[in-house]
């Protein structure tokens, strides 16, 4: 174990990653002790293989899919990266949205020099991607629609059924990045006419570094990682057995407790916003029709990053836009696409709750927000007045 114990914090950043569920840790611990390679002939291999295929069944069940349509990957990013390159070629057109995750936007950009054209459709001011707007962007050479199910920054929920209907009426393929959706909203690949769906384990209390790509049988599939014939020859490399077993365990629990957790999160959202209202703070919620667990809040006149740091100092972990690794503070492309100004977008933070969040924690973060924002807003008002006097 590292010599740096985890800080004693109230964790309100489930959209970045959820804490590993204890049951998942136990499953992974057991699976990690299995010596076998699932591809081996011997019994050690057989046990590992059975574990792997049971996990595949669990994942398939959660999506209304068949086990052979599930390809386990290293995460949502790999799943998204796998979808496009083999599918799209010179002359093909893709309709996607301006609010996609970088793991959809960047792989599509890479195909543009090869003759693939990409249209990014703007969201409504509330963050939603309208099926009608997607349909209006179609061209005769459109081959694929790729729209995320739940936005990672605002929680905005797309109408997958309507999008799938557009795809089906025009004979197009439909991909959805469901990394933030799995376990948070019901998913059914057949009802929604989905051809490809990406998901990740760690957003629902599974391990980091494990994900899946659903690929409808009969649709063209391109191997991103060439190698052995693992994953039905769809992804080379010895399978991450413990991670995949943990992923399946997390899916089981998330499925079982979905209804109850969903109502609990609706309640938490009300408490948070109610407390902010009571505190007479000036704020906006970015996005409507969102999943309850993600709350994107904008506080006029407040530097969002400084607010996150202040909350951290008070023991609350929240995030500024999506998690950013490089230390840059660029404004969120999602919020800008929704029509926020640069100043508005940099004054927003994301609070996200999940399976282990308690009412006390929500009350705590609401109180801390009230305190800090109140102070920062009065400082900035003060600074503004001084500037006017000069």
């Amino acid at each position, binding site marked *: 174990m590292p010599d*740096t114990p985890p800080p004693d914090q109230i964790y309100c950043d489930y959209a970045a990653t959820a804490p590993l569920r204890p049951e998942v840790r136990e499953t992974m611990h057991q699976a990690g002790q299995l010596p076998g390679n699932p591809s081996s002939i011997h019994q050690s291999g057989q046990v590992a293989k059975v574990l792997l295929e049971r996990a595949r069944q669990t994942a398939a069940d959660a999506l209304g899919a068949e086990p052979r349509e599930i390809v386990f990957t290293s995460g949502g990013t790999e799943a998204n990266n796998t979808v496009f390159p083999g599918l799209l070629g010179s002359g093909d057109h893709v309709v996607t949205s301006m609010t996609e995750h970088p793991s959809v936007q960047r792989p599509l950009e890479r195909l543009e020099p090869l003759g693939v054209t990409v249209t990014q459709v703007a969201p409504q001011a509330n963050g939603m991607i309208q099926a009608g707007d997607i349909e209006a962007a179609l061209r005769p050479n459109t081959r694929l629609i790729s729209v995320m199910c739940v936005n990672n920054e605002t929680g905005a929920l797309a109408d997958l059924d309507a999008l799938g209907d557009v795809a089906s009426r025009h004979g197009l393929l439909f991909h959805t990045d469901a990394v933030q959706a799995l376990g948070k909203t019901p998913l059914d690949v057949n009802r929604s006419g989905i051809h490809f769906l990406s998901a990740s384990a760690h957003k629902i209390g599974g391990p980091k570094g494990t994900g899946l790509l659903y690929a409808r049988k009969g649709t063209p599939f391109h191997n991103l990682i060439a190698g052995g014939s693992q994953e039905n020859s769809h992804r080379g490399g010895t399978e991450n057995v413990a991670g995949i077993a943990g992923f399946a365990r997390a899916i089981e629990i998330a499925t079982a407790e979905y209804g109850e957790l969903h109502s609990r999160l609706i309640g938490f959202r009300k408490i948070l916003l109610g407390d902010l209202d009571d505190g007479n703070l000036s704020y906006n919620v970015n996005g409507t029709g969102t999943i309850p667990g993600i709350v994107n809040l904008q506080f006029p006149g407040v*530097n969002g*990053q400084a607010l996150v*740091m*202040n909350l951290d*100092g008070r023991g609350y972990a929240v995030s500024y836009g999506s998690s950013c690794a490089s*230390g*840059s503070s*660029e404004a969120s492309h999602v919020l800008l696409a929704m029509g926020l100004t640069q100043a508005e977008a940099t004054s927003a933070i994301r609070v996200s709750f999940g399976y282990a969040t308690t009412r006390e924690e929500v009350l705590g973060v609401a109180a801390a927000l009230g305190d800090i924002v109140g*102070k920062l807003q009065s400082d900035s008002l003060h600074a503004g007045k001084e500037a006017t006097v000069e």
Partner: protein
Amino acid sequence: MSERVVVAMSGGVDSSVALLKVLEAGYEAFGVTMKLWESRDVGGQLLEESNCCPVEAINMARDVCVSLGVPHYTLDFQDVFKATVIDNFVEEYLAGRTPNPCVRCNSYVKWDALFDYADQLGADKIATGHFARIVTGPNGQPQLLRGVDQHKDQSYVLWGIPRHTLQRTLLPLGGMTKTQVRALANEAGLATANVPESQAICFVTDNNYRRFLSEHASEQMAGVGPGSILDEAGTEIGTHPGYVNYTVGQRRGLGLASPEPLYVKKLDREQNTVTVAPQASLWGSQCQVQELNWLVDPPSDPVTVHARVRYNSTGAAARLNFEDDTVELHFEEPQLAITAGQSATFYEGDVLLGGGVISRVGG
């Protein structure tokens, strides 16, 4: 409740030990690393000893903070750094002067933008790993003093910080030697204990400012072409590919055959000439200093101080005469290669009185 201190962490050993000392003193501390530039924006191959700003440096700073149990944040100051430091660096070279970007970074980024951020984080003070001291003077006001380690003293690059920030600044290394700092870092097992010293200008990663200018300011550099190298009498004795390639006092790279060594004495942007001379001719006693900043009550009558006109000089006695908002600096003994664009700092004993930028060399 103890005071909150923001410690500016570069990812090097000095600022790491500054954090250690701040914690020892009983403050509630947290570390910040200012992201000043992106490697892809400044170009060049990173030198091993260039330890500011790249991801590795941020990682080192975070490692030290986490192992000492304090938060660490990366602050994106790229815009303010470009506007106040990099753009000026380019302008100064194009004007035929030799800029001192570290001075401007301290004045406009660390002791301005960082203070602004410190306020938003509810911090009472900031601390850095500079080798200089802040001590309460006889009038009860804080004064900035040289660092005790004479070889490491960094007061020269701090003359431009706003005076009112002294009371909110901690410089915990001012009383220590570099050897003591390393020893303390090793004793504490800090990840940065053996990070090599950084000497270069942080954003000129390969220490090649000519490469930086040609890549970063290619438009302006397009107007800089070949010209004449003149002797002191104004006779052409060679040619140069562009005056920005030279700094006053430079000897190497002139490509001149001469019985005695020749040094760059003067750069003339208008005439596009570089004037060279024997070393004896580079000694001068006088210069004009502008953009003054005082860390004590500003003097107005002529005063004798100890003045430094470059980072690596111990300085010498000089007389300051005031004219409007500029100062005429008269050294008692001639100094070698006083260079426009460099900083002049004024001391009384160990106390840094203030400083400015050398705007004109000679009388």
